[in-house]
C-alpha cells in the first residue's frame, strides 16, 4: 500500500479544458458578459462573477431515447395506498412521476450558468477597446525600466550566484596552481597506513609522511573555492519605450446636474478608470470637476464629494489647458479627455467654450469624448426637433470638422456600457462589425 500526498501537486489541471471551453463558447460568453455588465454595479465589475449562456451553444448531443411517448414501465418505492389495477390521472408535463428515464443532465433549455474569474470577465468585457491613436512613443527615463541580464560581476547577492561560472573559475585556478587532488592524499595515507602496519622501511615512511605533510599544506594554501572565483549574475536596467498618455476627466457637478445624472456620469468615469487601469498601466489620470469654477481633485473627491454651484464649462477646459501646459508637454504625451455634463452652460459662455476647445485643447488632443447625461423621462428622439442642450448644439458645430471629437448621449444606466464601448472600440474592430 502506498499513500501519496498529492496536495502539493500543481492544481488547475483542467485549466486547459477551461480555456478550450471559453474559446468554444466565446461569442456566447462575450455576449453574456456584456449583458450582465449592464445590471451590475461598477464596483462589481472588478469582481468577475456568474454569467449564464444559452446551453444550446455548448450542447453535447447524444443519441438517446426521447422522454415522451411510447410505453414506459416505472418501478417506484414507497407505495402508500395503491392497489393493483388502480388508474392514476397522468400528471402534466409527461414523463410520468418517476422521471427516471428523463434526461440525466436535467432540463435542456435552461441557461448554463458558471463563474468567470475577474480576469476572464474583464478581459472579455474590455476586449477590443483601446485608446485611439496612441501615437507618441517616447523613451522615458526612470519608471519604465526592464531588468535584463548583463554578464557577470564579482560581487552580488548570494541569490544571484552564478554557480557554473564560479565552479569553472575554481577548477581552472586549481589546475593552474597545481592543487593536489584529494585522491592523491588518500593514496598516500593508505600507503602510510600499510607501511605502519607492516613496520618496515622507516625511511620510506618518513619520506611519505613528509610528502603528505607538503600535500596537506598545499591543499590548505590553495582553497577549493576562493573568493576570487566567485561570479554573480548581473542585471542592468534597460529603459523601454512606452507610450505616455494622460486622460483628463472633466465632470460637471453644478446644481443642474441631478443626482441620477451625477450617478450616470460617475459610472461612466468609473468604467473609464477600470479600463485605463487594466489596459494601460502607464496612463496618468487627471480629474477635474467644475461648477462655475474648476479645480483639479483627486480620485476620491472626484467620485465621492458633493459640491454644487453654477455652470461655466469653459473654466474646466481652461483648467485642463493650464495643466497640459504645466505638466504634459503635447510633444511627449498622448492626451485624451472625457467630458461629462448635462449640457447646461451659462449662455454667454458657449462661444468661449467652443473657441477654447477648438483652438487650444483639440489641437493637442488625440481624442476628446463628450458625454451628455440626461434623465430617463426625457423624450428619446433628441435629434428630431426636440430640445437639444446648449452645449450639445455648440459642440455639434465642432464635431464635423474635428475627427478626434466624439459626442454621445446617455439617459439610462443600461446605456452606459454600450456607449462606452462605442466610444472606445478599436477602430479596425468597428470597421469589421
Amino acid at each position, binding site marked *: 500500500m502506498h*499513500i501519496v500526498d*498529492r496536495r502539493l501537486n500543481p492544481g488547475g489541471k483542467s485549466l486547459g479544458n477551461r480555456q478550450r471551453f471559453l474559446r*468554444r463558447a466565446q461569442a456566447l460568453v462575450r455576449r453574456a458578459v456584456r449583458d450582465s455588465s449592464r445590471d451590475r454595479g461598477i464596483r462589481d465589475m472588478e469582481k468577475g462573477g456568474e454569467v449564464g449562456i444559452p446551453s444550446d451553444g*455548448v450542447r*453535447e448531443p447524444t443519441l438517446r431515447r426521447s422522454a415522451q411517448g411510447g410505453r414506459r414501465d416505472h418501478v*417506484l418505492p414507497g407505495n402508500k395506498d395503491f392497489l393493483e389495477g388502480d388508474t392514476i390521472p397522468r400528471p402534466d408535463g409527461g414523463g410520468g412521476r418517476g422521471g427516471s428515464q428523463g434526461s440525466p443532465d436535467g432540463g435542456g433549455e435552461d441557461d448554463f450558468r458558471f463563474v468567470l474569474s475577474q480576469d476572464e470577465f474583464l478581459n472579455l468585457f474590455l476586449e477590443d477597446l483601446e485608446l485611439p491613436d496612441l501615437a507618441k512613443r517616447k523613451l522615458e527615463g526612470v519608471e519604465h525600466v526592464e531588468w535584463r541580464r548583463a554578464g557577470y560581476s564579482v560581487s552580488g547577492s548570494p541569490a544571484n550566484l552564478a554557480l557554473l561560472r564560479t565552479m569553472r573559475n575554481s577548477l581552472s585556478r586549481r589546475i593552474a596552481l597545481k592543487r593536489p587532488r584529494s585522491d592523491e592524499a588518500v593514496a598516500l595515507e593508505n600507503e602510510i597506513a600499510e607501511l605502519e602496519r607492516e613496520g618496515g622501511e622507516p625511511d620510506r615512511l618518513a619520506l611519505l609522511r613528509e610528502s603528505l605533510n607538503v600535500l596537506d599544506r598545499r591543499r590548505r594554501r590553495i582553497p577549493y573555492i576562493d573568493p576570487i572565483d566567485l561570479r554573480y549574475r548581473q542585471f542592468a536596467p534597460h529603459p523601454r519605450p512606452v507610450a505616455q498618455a494622460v486622460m483628463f476627466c472633466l465632470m460637471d457637478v453644478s446644481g443642474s446636474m441631478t443626482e441620477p445624472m451625477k450617478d450616470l456620469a460617475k459610472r461612466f468615469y468609473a468604467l473609464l478608470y477600470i479600463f485605463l487601469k487594466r489596459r494601460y498601466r502607464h496612463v496618468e489620470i487627471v480629474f477635474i470637476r467644475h461648477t462655475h469654477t474648476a479645480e483639479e481633485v483627486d480620485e476620491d473627491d472626484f467620485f465621492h464629494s458633493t459640491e454644487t454651484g453654477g455652470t461655466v464649462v469653459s473654466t474646466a477646459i481652461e483648467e485642463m489647458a493650464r495643466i497640459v501646459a504645466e505638466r504634459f508637454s503635447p510633444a511627449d504625451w498622448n492626451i485624451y479627455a472625457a467630458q461629462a455634463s448635462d449640457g447646461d452652460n451659462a449662455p454667454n459662455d458657449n462661444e468661449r467654450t467652443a473657441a477654447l476647445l477648438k483652438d487650444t485643447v483639440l489641437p493637442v488632443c488625440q481624442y476628446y469624448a463628450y458625454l451628455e447625461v440626461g434623465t430617463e423621462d426625457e423624450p428619446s428622439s433628441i435629434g428630431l426637433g426636440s430640445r437639444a442642450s446648449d452645449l450639445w448644439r455648440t459642440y455639434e458645430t465642432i464635431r464635423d470638422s474635428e475627427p478626434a471629437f466624439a459626442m454621445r448621449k446617455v439617459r439610462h444606466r443600461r446605456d452606459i456600457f454600450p456607449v462606452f464601448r462605442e466610444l472606445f472600440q478599436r477602430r479596425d474592430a468597428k470597421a469589421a462589425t
Partner: protein
Amino acid sequence: MILKLDPGERLLYRGPDWDFTTLRRIHDAIEQVALKDMGLDVYPNQIEVITAEQMLDAYSSSGMPLFYKHWSFGKHFAQHETVYRQGLGDLAYEIVINSNPCITYIMEENTATMQALVIAHASFGHNHFFKNNYLFKQWTDADGILDYLDFAKGFIAECEERYGHREVERVLDAAHSLMSNSVHRYPRRSRPDLRTEEKRERERREHEERMYNDLWRTVPAARDGAPSSALEEHRKALLQLPQENILYFLEKTAPRLKPWQREILRIVRLIAQYFYPQRQTKLMNEGCATWCHYRIMTALHERGEISDGDFMEAMHSHTNVTYQPSFDHPRYNGVNPYALGFAMMRDIARIAVEPTQEDREWFPDFAGKGDADGVLRDVWANYRDESFVMQFLSPRMIRDWRLFHLLDDTNEPALRVDAIHDERGYRRIRRAFAKQYDVACLDADIQVVDVDLAGDRRLILHHNVLNRVLLETEDTGRVMQHLADLWGYDVLLKEIDTTTGMVLKEHHAKPHPAG
C-alpha cells in the same frame, strides 16, 4: 503533532485529526478485516491525498488522473465549480479508479473517521468489485488503462499541435456524440492468429483441389449486372454488418478519414468501452462498497479500534448515503443505488444466515447456507445490475420498500398500477425492475445496417424502436450531422418498430463541405 497512543490502547486514532501514520494504521486495520474476515481479493492499494480543488479537477475528466483535453470537460468543471461554490452540493468523499494498483483519492478536509470510511468503501469495496466482477474482467484492462490514457493524452495534444485545435475539436465533438453507441456489447470471436489462419487457408485449397472438375469450366457464368443476394450477403459480411459499434465501423470503413482521425475515434471508443461495465454495475458496485464499509466499520468498532463517537459519525454518513425518499417525496430523484444496493446486500446476508420459510422457497440454493460473505462474493463476481435484481430481489425487499409497478402508456388515458407488493406482484415487479437496470433497454439500439461503398456510399442506420419510444429529435439531428461529417457522405437513420417492422421516422444528414 503526532498523537501518542497508549501501548495498551486499541483505538486507531482519536479525534478528527489524522496524519500519514494514522492513515497507514487505519488502512492496515481495515485490511485485516477485509482480507481475513470477509475474504476480499483486491488489487494493491494506492491512496492519494488531494485538496478540494484537485477533487474538482478530477471530477471534470471522468475521475481519471489524466485525460486528454476537451472543452466539454471544462464545461463540466465550470458546472461543478458553480454548484460547489454556491454550497448547493458537496464534493464526493472519494474517487476510485479501476486500475492496478487501485488508486483512491481522498480529500484532505475529511476527518479521520471519514477517511476510514472512505478507505473501507473505495479501497476495499470498489477495489474488490473491480477485480472480481466478470464484466470488468472481460472488458477492462486494469493494468493498462493508465498507460493508455497517457498515450491518448499525448496523442491528442500532438494532433492539436499538428493539425490545429479546431480540427481536433471537430473530430472529438463528433466522436463524443457517438460515444455511447460505440461499445461492443458482446464479446466477439477473437481474431484467429496467423498460424490458424494459414492452416485454414491450406485446408481450403486442399478442398478445392479435391473437388476440382473440369466440367465446371463449361457451365455458363452468372450474368453481370444483377448482383445476387449471396453477393450482397458477402459484401455485408466483409463490412461486418450489421454493426452496433458505430465508431468502430467508422474507424475501419469511413472512406474519407485521415489516419490520425481514425486513431482519435479509436481512443474515444476504447475509453467508452472501458467505462461500459461501470454503467451496468452501478447498483452492485455501490452496494458492494457500501456493504463493505458497513461491515468493516462495525467490525472495527466491535474490536474497540474505533471509539463510540467516531462510530456514530460513520453511521451518520452511512445513513445519509443510503437514504431513499419515497416516490412522492419532493426530493425523490430515482432509486438511490447506494440505498438499494446496500439493502439488497444486507438482505442476501440475512437470507444466507437466518432465512424465513418464504426465503427458502424463493432462494433454495443459498438460503440458510450460513456463509454470508461467501454468497456475497459469488454474487459480486457473477452478476450485473439487471441479472442481480432479477435473481436476488426478495419478496421481503419488495414489501419493505413498498415497490409498485406503474405503467405509463401514451395510448391509454391514465397511468395504471400494474403490480404492488403482494403475492401476485412480486415476480412482475422484479421483472420490470430488472429491466430498469438493463442497458439494452435503456440505451437505444442503433446499428449500422448497410452502405454501398461502390455506389453512392450512403450510410444507412436503423434504430430498433422498443415500446414506441423514439429518439430525441433535436439531439438526433445534431448527432446525425456529426456522423455525416465523419462519414463524408450522406447518412440516413431509420427508426423501425421492432414489433411491426414499420418505419416510424427518418433522419437525414449531409456532410458539411470539407474545410
